[in-house]
């Protein structure tokens, strides 16, 4: 099978070919490495490409297949790993110069799970410095470019992963999401990204993380592939107290099931208050398409979202504490956007931190109440499509908002609330802007009901106007 054809497949399409030995893990890995090498000068999506390790892994996995040993649907599938996830013996920089020579001794829990499932780790992916932003324009390792238009950001902070999955360099990438860092790149790059329920996936080995709603999540080219990836990485980890010991269902079981009888809530507050008209049109068309699939559309109200900005207060304080071990002794190695944004956390008063946690409680209760009346919510993933790499602001309704560093946050306003509530949220491509940049639809569900989100999003995916569309750079 020609290399480029292999790299166009989804995991669900490729896995049976590997199992049947029609395509070998070595062949797939060589195709992925060749594509990574070809596109790295354009996308700058990797910090480290693991040529030797990936080939060694592929040879081992091929030998297993020849012995009749098949690990499952990730056997021999090349995946990318964000550079803030620990990889044993492999440099893991968190996108910062401070940790440029950091080589962990252990794999992150999710990396171990992927290796055990037979995935080939293709490389460590470029990202925002310290995962603190939504551009992936990294001051130390260079900007990641969007394969739909190289002059535009891929979203962040897991931008390398989003770009790689969209361009067909990897079949899936593991990112992290503290305010939308998986869903943002999914929105900007036209791929599927899920931030599952807080506690569903272990964060062990996620570096320089926050106490305030960080998650590890996959980006893929299809909803089915997302279900396959989450199946591999989900589950209780006794060494991570944030994980919850609940059963892990078969996430693929409900794919393709009828949506009739389900109810979707469309918030009348907050999510559509500040939004690019093209994004709003695409998202409302997607919601109408859900209606045509049999879902009852109900307008819902989330009035407490008026105070959603307060959710960032706790994050500010957490940020300065998180950076404390590095910031004083490595001041010169920090980029200005992260440095000055982190330092602002020093001003947060304890009383305000406490109030922020109470606001978080109010908002969580409000979502829980609304999700008793509907099965899931539908919102935009981002208020605007991707913006130009060389732009420091995003203009909406005549107001220029900072797109990076202190005072930024507007671009993550639709994703970050789910980090505070801990509710599962998935982004699925639903349109392209006039400039040809992707737009994402976000579905938010009840705790531990990712299966329902997959059911709804896979049904929508089949009728999406962008189904099968690929970026110019691939």
């Amino acid at each position, binding site marked *: 099978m020609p290399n480029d054809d292999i790299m166009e497949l989804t995991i669900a399409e490729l896995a049976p070919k590997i199992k049947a030995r029609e395509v070998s893990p070595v062949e797939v890995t060589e195709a992925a490495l060749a594509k990574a090498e070809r596109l790295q000068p354009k996308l700058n999506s990797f910090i480290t490409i693991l040529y030797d390790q990936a080939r060694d892994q592929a040879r081992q996995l091929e030998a297993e297949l020849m012995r009749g040993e098949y690990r499952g649907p990730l056997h021999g599938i090349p995946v990318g790993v964000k550079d803030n996830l620990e990889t044993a013996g492999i440099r893991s920089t968190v996108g910062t110069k401070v940790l440029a020579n950091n080589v962990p001794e252990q794999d992150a829990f999710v990396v171990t799970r992927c290796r055990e499932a037979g995935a080939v780790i293709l490389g460590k992916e470029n990202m925002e410095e310290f995962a603190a932003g939504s551009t992936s324009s990294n001051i130390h390792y260079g900007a990641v470019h969007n394969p739909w238009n190289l002059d535009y950001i891929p979203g962040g902070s897991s931008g390398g992963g989003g770009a790689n999955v969209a361009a067909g360099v990897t079949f899936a990438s593991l990112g992290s999401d503290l305010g939308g860092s998986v869903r943002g790149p999914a929105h900007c790059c036209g791929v599927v990204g899920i931030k599952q329920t807080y506690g569903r996936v272990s964060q062990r080995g996620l570096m320089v993380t926050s106490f305030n709603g960080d998650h590890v999540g996959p980006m893929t080219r299809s909803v089915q592939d997302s279900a396959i990836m989450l199946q591999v990485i989900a589950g209780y980890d006794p060494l991570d107290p944030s994980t919850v010991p609940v059963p892990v269902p078969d996430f693929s079981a409900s794919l393709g099931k009828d949506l009739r009888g389900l109810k979707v809530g469309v918030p009348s507050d907050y999510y559509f208050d500040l939004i690019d008209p093209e994004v709003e049109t695409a998202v409302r068309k997607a919601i109408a398409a859900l209606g045509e699939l049999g879902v009852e559309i109900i307008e819902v109200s989330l009035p407490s979202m008026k105070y959603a900005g307060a959710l960032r207060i706790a994050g500010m304080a957490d940020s300065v504490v998180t950076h404390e071990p590095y910031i004083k002794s490595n001041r010169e190695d920090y980029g200005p956007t992260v440095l000055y944004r982190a330092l602002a956390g020093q001003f947060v008063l304890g009383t305000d931190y406490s109030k922020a946690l109470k*606001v978080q*409680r109010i908002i969580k209760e409000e979502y829980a109440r609304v999700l008793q009346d509907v099965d899931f919510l539908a919102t935009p993933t981002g208020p605007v499509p991707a913006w130009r790499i060389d732009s420091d602001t995003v203009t909406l309704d005549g107001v220029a908002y900072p797109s990076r560093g202190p005072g930024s946050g507007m671009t993550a306003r639709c994703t970050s609330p789910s980090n505070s509530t801990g509710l599962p949220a998935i982004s699925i491509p639903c349109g392209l802007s006039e400039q040809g940049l992707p737009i994402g639809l976000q579905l938010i569900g009840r705790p531990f009901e990712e299966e329902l989100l997959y059911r709804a999003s896979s049904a929508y995916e089949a009728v999406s106007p962008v189904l099968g569309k690929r970026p110019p750079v691939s």
Partner: protein
Amino acid sequence: MTISAETLKAMIRDFKGFELSDEELELVRPELESYLREVELLKELDLSGLMSSRLLRAKEEGDAIA
């Protein structure tokens, strides 16, 4: 609400002796102002009667773990 530059510098200095120039302080200010706007908005909200959201999980045999 406006906080003087000297007060802000003193607060930053409290962070392991970190010194900021006036120019650097201006780079921090947008984040600070965003914080102060949110705090101001919270003044209209009654936060006194909320129940704790601390999570305890019960083991099957009845013990509780935090």
